[in-house]
């Protein structure tokens, strides 16, 4: 999109430099540590799967049994057990569920273990690159029915089989991306549930089998509608790397992936989740999966007019961490939202300014734009109009991923007709203003240009403060979303381990080499 706001390029560059300065010490920490879920994800990539009779997943059993040597990585013991026992992964997994303790096996010849590991890593890599190819082929095949912004709809019944019905209906109604909201508690689980699930609270558990079921259902719709429909799920929480691996293995297309969200809004320990985020983002990069980030949350908890700069600051920081993990800009679905108090005069102009600014600062990123929620009430008719204004702002500023607003947002989780109405609203508005974004300019000294400049300036000031204190301290001091999180607090710190000199992770090595991430 042509730059229209006249934003000073030197300031944008400065913001990026500050983001890099903020990320650097965090990246340094990340590179020197591993976590229980990074190790579990590594084992999953190597083939560890299944649960014991108590529902404890094999990767959890394995990592728990090796908890005194996580600093060296868990791959050596797992692959070592395969080599020593002459086993296939299914057989070893079964033995682990029966109580076999990986720590009791002396790892055999190093060269043999590394050779076997290479085979397993290659198999994983081939599976993932196969999915990348088939996705690209399907996208190309149905390119003419592709639309931008892509319409993103959510389903969440708690029962994956009901979700399939709703997702199929949503896709046929016009959704280009379907996301399955997870059971509320899942962010806080330090394991990933196993198998198809039919009960959940406020959503459906993310499990590998649920991914597979939904993927198959959407693939059928793609054939029928001749339009690619992306499957989206949520990685955030204590198992980001594992969910990323599962998504890569089952050909998900987009993943919510944002440590800042986990820290600020789910009280996950910051050290734990930054290490997890890096590993999971490398997987996403390798699997060509678009990440979505959760900047909308800044606006739902704070005043959207006053705190717009925190959204832009977070976008710069997320961009930097994504880059460090090998993600290309086209895979960075940085987030923002339409949440300004609708009673403020010119609120729409401020939304336009923010959306246009994000578009210009991140020209290649598939920005994710989220609908009004905070000021949605039981007045569903007013809600429908607010969603129309949101649809207008989105299409007028060239947003990429458009999360459809529901008129019943303030009342309940969407009824099937609510989704239909949402799609009709977007189709009408977006067709009516199809080429508006290429036809409009902004008054040089007008409200929107000045607002964008002001937000950018405020963002730089904020980034300077954060760079000054360091990111961990800034979070502890409550600089983000007015939420204070102690560095040693939150969930999951005990699962962080410093890598020893002999740390070995063949999956991580493969990811680094394939994504070009330097150590």
């Amino acid at each position: 999109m042509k730059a229209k706001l006249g934003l000073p390029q030197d300031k944008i560059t400065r913001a990026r430099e500050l983001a890099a300065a903020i990320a650097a010490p965090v990246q340094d920490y990340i590179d020197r540590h591993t976590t229980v879920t990074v190790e579990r994800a590594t084992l999953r990539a190597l083939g560890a799967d299944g649960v014991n009779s108590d529902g404890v997943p094999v990767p959890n059993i394995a990592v728990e049994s090796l908890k005194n040597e996580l600093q060296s990585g868990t791959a050596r013991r797992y692959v070592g057990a395969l080599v020593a026992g002459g086993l296939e992964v299914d057989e070893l997994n079964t033995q682990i569920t029966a109580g076999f303790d990986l720590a009791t096996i002396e790892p055999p010849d190093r060269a043999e273990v590394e050779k076997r590991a290479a085979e397993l890593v290659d198999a994983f890599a081939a599976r993932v690159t196969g999915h990348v190819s088939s996705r690209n082929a399907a996208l190309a095949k149905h390119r003419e029915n592709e639309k931008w912004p892509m319409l993103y709809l959510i389903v969440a019944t708690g029962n994956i089989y009901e979700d399939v019905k709703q997702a199929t209906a949503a896709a046929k109604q016009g959704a280009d991306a379907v996301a399955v909201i997870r059971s509320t508690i899942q962010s806080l689980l330090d394991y990933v549930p196993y198998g198809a699930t039919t009960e959940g609270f406020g959503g459906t558990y993310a499990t590998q089998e649920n991914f597979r079921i939904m993927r198959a259902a959407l693939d059928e719709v793609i054939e029928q509608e001749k339009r690619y429909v992306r499957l989206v799920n949520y990685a955030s929480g204590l198992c980001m790397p594992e969910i990323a691996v599962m998504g890569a293995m089952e050909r998900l297309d987009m993943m919510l992936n944002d440590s800042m969200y986990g820290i600020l809004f789910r009280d996950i320990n910051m050290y734990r989740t930054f290490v997890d985020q890096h590993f999971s983002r490398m997987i996403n990069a390798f699997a060509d999966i678009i990440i979505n980030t959760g900047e909308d949350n800044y606006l739902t908890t704070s005043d959207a007019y006053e705190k717009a700069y925190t959204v832009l600051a977070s976008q710069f920081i997320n961009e930097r961490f994504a880059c460090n993990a090998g993600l290309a800009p086209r895979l960075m679905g940085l987030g923002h939202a339409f949440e300004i108090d609708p009673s403020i005069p010119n609120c729409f102009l401020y939304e336009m300014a923010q959306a246009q600014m994000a578009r210009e600062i991140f020209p290649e990123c598939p920005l994710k734009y989220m609908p009004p929620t905070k000021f949605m009430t039981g007045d569903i008719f007013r809600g429908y109009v607010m969603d129309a204004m949101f649809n207008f702002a989105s299409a007028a500023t060239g947003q990429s991923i458009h999360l459809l607003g529901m008129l019943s947002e303030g009342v309940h989780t969407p009824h099937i007709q609510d989704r239909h109405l949402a799609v009709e609203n977007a189709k009408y508005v977006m067709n009516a203003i199809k080429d508006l974004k290429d036809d409009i300019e902004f008054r040089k000294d007008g409200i929107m240009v000045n607002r964008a400049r002001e937000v950018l300036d405020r963002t730089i000031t904020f980034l300077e403060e954060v760079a000054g204190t360091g990111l961990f301290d800034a979070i502890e001091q409550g600089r983000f979303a007015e939420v204070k999180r102690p560095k040693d607090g939150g969930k999951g710190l005990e699962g962080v381990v410093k890598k020893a000199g002999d740390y070995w992770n063949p999956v991580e090595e493969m990811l680094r080499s394939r994504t070009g991430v330097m150590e």
Partner: protein
Amino acid sequence: MEVRPYGDTLDDGAMQLSFTLPMTDSATAREAAKQLVLKLGFVHCEVVHAAALSEGFTMFIAYGWTQVSIDPDQIEVEEGAVPELMGFDEVNKFIKERLGRPIVIVGACTGSDAHTVGIDAIMNMKGYNHHYGLERYPMVEAHNLGAQVENERLIDYSQEVNADAILVSQVVTQKDVHVDNMADLLGVVESRGVRDRFIMIVGGPHITHGLAQESGFDAGFGRGTYAEHVATYVAKQLVERSV
């Protein structure tokens, strides 16, 4: 098999309602709204919004859950006069090939009826809602006599121009005046012994094919029908009768 409204789960019976009560907004008014909904057969109701429209009027938005159901297998839907519709080009081609001459249709609003909106929509060149009127059809000779035409005059004219079909528009139905008018017209046609010469068609917003046939007409056309419905019906009838 019974069918219930579907919110987000099969058989949840969820419906969205909005209505206004002539009451000033208050806790009592909201409770009244809720209880009214429950009285309508809903087992559960939530009033999610109340908006004061002006003094003494409040609009409510509510969701209700009902156990009332319907069995689609027990429902009979009346079939229209034209189960297989031909479009403008198709029907003109059909008339040309199968009849070899234009069909003659005379239309009017009869008796005291002055509302020509309907007959104009079917007959005038411009037609209605992008559906051309019969005057536009190359293979139709359309005569629109307009409003308040007496039945005797309508039949005289139709005999003069050798009409194939007579199209009578009946918009006004208060006190069933349309039924009387329709019966009267048929009386004229029959007393002249020319019932078999004309395809008698009646149309209007409250007319159905069933009602028309019960009244002795050949066909009836109601809401959602256009010139092509009439043309298709008449053309097919003429072909059938010529065999």
